[in-house]
């Protein structure tokens, strides 16, 4: 199990890698074209290094800004206090549960990737039908018949709204040549 701090460190290191890459790439541009990207990437690298230091060696809340205090310059109201207490409580719960939903995180990434893969291979409209129908059925929310009816209605509505009303050229996906080839037989 990866601790929250380790996760935060990994995120900072990934961002550090991104901004270093931006800095190095920017050096290849003309002086005028790199006028903003270079200082911005240097600034981001410095901020990330401070963030890395801070989150490992100092209390993280030292970097937090109390919005309500800044805006009202007064002590917070009961409701606002409750809100902040709720936030702290929610944060604590979130931290405790941090490890638990990783499986769900991976599944959520999985269905986004799957949907995109279907869009590229089938085209957007067939992909919407297959994904929505599949999701309804796999989640067990609707029976096969209901899922088919609702998905058909939704897909037709999307088709009319986007393809007909907005006059968007359809994309047939990577499988179109294969379908065309198979049609010959």
């Amino acid at each position, binding site marked *: 199990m990866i601790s929250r701090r380790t*996760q*935060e460190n990994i*995120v900072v290191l990934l*961002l550090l890698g*991104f*901004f270093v890459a931006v800095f190095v790439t920017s050096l290849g*541009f*003309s002086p005028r*074209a790199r*006028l*903003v*990207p270079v200082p*911005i*990437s240097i*600034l*981001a690298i410095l*901020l990330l290094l401070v*963030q890395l230091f801070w989150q490992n060696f100092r209390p993280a809340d030292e*970097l*937090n*800004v109390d*919005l*309500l205090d*800044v805006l*009202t310059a007064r002590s917070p*109201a*009961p*409701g*606002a206090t*409750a*809100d902040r207490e709720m936030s702290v409580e929610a944060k604590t719960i979130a931290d405790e549960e941090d490890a638990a*939903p990783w499986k*769900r*995180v991976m*599944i*959520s*990434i999985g*269905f*986004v990737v799957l*949907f*995109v893969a279907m*869009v*590229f291979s089938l085209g*957007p*409209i067939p*992909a*919407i039908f297959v*994904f*929505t129908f599949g*999701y*309804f059925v796999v*989640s*067990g*929310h609707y029976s096969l018949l209901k899922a088919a009816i609702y998905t058909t209605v*939704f897909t037709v509505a*999307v088709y009319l709204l*986007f393809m007909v009303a*907005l006059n968007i*050229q359809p*994309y047939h996906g990577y499988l179109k040549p294969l379908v065309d080839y198979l049609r010959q037989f």
Partner: protein
Amino acid sequence: MLEAIGAGFMSLMNVQAMVFMTIGVVYGLVVGILPGLGGIVAMALLLPFTYGYDPVATLGLLLGAHIATIWGSSVTSILFRVPGAAKSLALIFDGYPMTQRGEASRALGASATAALLGGLIGAVFLAVSIPIVRPIMLALGPAEYLMMALWGLTIIATFSEGSLLKGLIAAAGGVIIAFVGMDPVTGTPRFWFNSVFLLDGISFPVAMIGMFAVAEMMKLYVKGGAIVERDVGNETSSVLTGIKDAFRHWWLVVRSSLLGVWIGVLPGIGASIGGIAAYAQAVQTSRDNENFGKGDVRGVIAPDATLGANEGGGLMPTLAFGIPGGESMAILLIAFIGLGIQPGPKMLTDELDIVFAMMWIIVVANVITTAIGLAASPYFARLPALNPNVMIPLVLSVCFIGAYATRGQIEDVLVAAGFGLLGYFMERYNYSRANFVIGMVLAEMIERNLHISLTLYGDDFLIKRPVALAMFLFVIFTTVMPFYRNWKRRRAAAEAAGSEAS
């Protein structure tokens, strides 16, 4: 000026504009009532529809949807104790206790009327501020605009939730992403990796769809379970009582609306903190405040008036300086780019009728929202019972087809998915997505004005432009100040702890 006000009104009074605005309001109410979606997602999903139509009609669609989502999310807070969006959080303190004791209709009536009055005050502020701001804007040069954009960039990080450093890092990330593609000033292709698709740059609407809508659906799945549960008594109140309450507490409405306007004008703060700040001022300025938190109608009126007025305030810096007042205004700016509208001095001179059309949109959309909302509240209130298993595939489908429809390029679907993953992890690790978006929007303004300043005034342009220098010092001051205040507070706490121990 009066002529422009009339022209703005007339441009709104056509069938297409009114139909678009009404569609936007109905859509916004539905989306607003669905917890977890909110105004940003609503506007992001509408961006593909902003091309090829009359600008006023398109703005009516976007602003109408946005205004309606604000009140829609208040409904969810009041009826279900689940804020439809972060900005409506304060409404649960008194709104839900009112629902529990059977006064939901009264709370909704007060909420809608306060939001309407707040919206009207915000629109009046926008109209009044234009003749004041216009000469100031015309006197400013590119160096001052550069400083203003830098201030916008740092102030949003200062006011972002959580870590100030993470807020600044997110803003820097947004700036860099905006530089993907051909540099319009030097003609240099940047960060394109020999991809013709990337040479056109990252489409802002597509990035918004991914960052907010796709990411929210992932969040909804990861959270799991039912969206809302409720346990309330029988309804005993009427909407009319709530409407009367709002007028009875007219001074609270005015105060809260002015607060909303002020928060809207400050770049980057947005409405999220506005509701809480309004609630705080209502409690602190009321003599009999012992009922707050137990179902006091003033606890509903104050946040809603602030949220309603926020839009008029937020439009002012967005239109006048091209600096968005919050993430919703950033999306509006992205729509401007698509419509060929250039915020800044030209906006308040040559395109004044569009500015006033927007003012009228705020007024009319608020009226339509209140009318439809009050009539349909009982029906809308059933919507959050929708299961995530229904919402996720439907919203994701609209996201990806919307991304494709934006430019007709299939690669944009990949971009939306990529930004969806990025947005999800930014949210998970508290890197503000709002800052990222505002960074994207301000990047072009920063770079363009820097180039023009260097060309016009040379490398030492800050010395030659004392106003810009003063603004630069102000930028540094506003960035350092929160750190200083934090340090001072900690030192005071440590001293107090030390003296108690001794």
